[in-house]
């Protein structure tokens, strides 16, 4: 018998919700630590009706859009320049390496010092966390262009511009979009981490706010919204990726 993956996934998810809910209802687990699905759903609908949810989502999404947007522009540009010019690559290399391996969250206090508590610091965190991924993926993408294809294009009289538009860019797209997709996750991490400590609105703020008040249900509700947003953003980019990438189905 063939089983649809989606069906199995939904079933397992539903089973977990059911176990969770009943474990709390029958008193096996203290709801103070895990809350319960029905209460979380109620909390979500309350937040949605009061406008609190929408407000937090827009604040977080705006920070995400600005920080991630900066990352895309600067990361792609830096990666592309490094891919084109050896000198730029060598100049950027230590930074990329450093940003890649350092625990970037440690930068948070110094950003607070520079930008104060609030939106600019969150944006800086978002940018810092996602830019490396995007720059390195773009660079790797450009470096992995098959030189045989460049030679073939030149044999038909391609100019440098032709090479860029008709060979290098299309060949780089798959790796670059993979970097953009991974960057989304890291940017969201930047938003949430940034908001946890020094914000006045947003989903991360809401998580830490309700956490401080020991309101587990509302805290988990915000957590779920963050997860859903992450999934939606990544899915959106995956859809874009598949459009450009249909030839890569090996």
């Amino acid at each position, binding site marked *: 018998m063939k089983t649809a993956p989606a069906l199995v996934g939904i079933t397992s998810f539903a089973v977990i919700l059911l176990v969770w809910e009943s474990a709390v209802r029958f008193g096996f687990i203290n709801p103070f630590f895990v809350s319960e699905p029905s209460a979380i759903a109620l909390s979500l609908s309350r937040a949605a009706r009061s406008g609190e949810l929408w407000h937090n989502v827009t604040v977080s999404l705006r920070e995400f859009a600005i920080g991630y947007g900066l990352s895309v522009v600067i990361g792609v540009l830096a990666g592309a320049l490094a891919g084109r010019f050896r000198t730029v690559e060598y100049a950027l290399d230590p930074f990329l390496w450093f940003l890649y391996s350092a625990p970037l969250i440690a930068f948070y206090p110094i950003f607070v010092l520079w930008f104060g508590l609030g939106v600019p610091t969150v944006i800086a965190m978002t940018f810092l966390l996602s830019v490396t991924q995007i720059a390195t993926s773009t660079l790797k993408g450009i470096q992995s262009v*098959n030189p*045989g*294809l460049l*030679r*073939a*294009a*030149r*044999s*038909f*009289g*391609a100019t440098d511009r*032709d090479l860029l538009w*008709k*060979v290098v860019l*299309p*060949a780089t*797209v798959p790796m670059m979009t993979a970097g953009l997709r991974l960057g989304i996750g890291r940017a969201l991490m930047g938003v949430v981490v940034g908001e946890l400590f020094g914000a006045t609105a947003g989903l991360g703020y809401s998580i830490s706010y309700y956490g401080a008040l020991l309101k587990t249900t509302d805290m988990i509700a915000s957590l779920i919204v963050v997860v859903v947003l992450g999934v939606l953003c990544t899915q959106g980019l995956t859809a874009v990726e598949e459009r450009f990438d*249909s*030839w*890569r*189905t*090996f």
Partner: protein
Amino acid sequence: MDARTVVEPAPHIQVESLTVVYEKPKAAGTLIAVSNVNLDIARGTFVTIVGPSGCGKSSLLLSIAGLVKPASGCVRVNGKPVSAPGRDRAVVFQDFALMPWRTVIDNVRFGLELQRPRGLTGGDLTERACRYVELVGLKGFEHYHPHQLSGGMRQRVGIARALAVDPEILLLDEPFGSLDAQTRDEMGSELLAIWERNKKTALFVTHGIDEAIFLADQIVVMARDPGRITKIISVDLPRPRTVETTDSKRFIEYRRQIRECL
């Protein structure tokens, strides 16, 4: 009439004391791939270059294509020195070098897009690409991507791409080198059939002796260390050639001659 004016027409391709040198990786000196080679190729002939790996046969071909810069000497096409790739030449590569993100038809269109022959619209280019896809027997596969095709079919795309720009000279760099023996023979016969239609000047690099004889009007035999021409053999076998050609006495004699030089 003055006797001097009826001498043979100027060769289509002239290679004059050509030397090609590569830098060895990691600065371990240089490698002389082609050393002082002279070669004339007449218009409309099919010339094959045969020799062991490292004899500089591909370097010679790529110099004629304008993709490799000679250390000294020069290549002339129609009397004019070659310094870069040009519309009069098109190359078919051993590794096919197809754009994996382009479909068959768009790969064939690739060279046309780059060269944009005058007065042709985008639609004209597609139409022309379509004709060449058909010519190489890939009708029905227009919208396939290279990874969905067999090696032989991929090289058909490579050949169509080169023919589509309507070059005077077709340069083929071990085009069937990565194909299995049976496909290779098939492709050879089909290439000849296509070539017979308009007899462009063709230069075909291979390390297969039989393939070199089967296709050629003239065989250039090369040797290595340094890469040089050791013999040029004119092949006098009737065209069109078929499988039976390869069993003929003369064919076997050519094979023996080439073996001796290698």
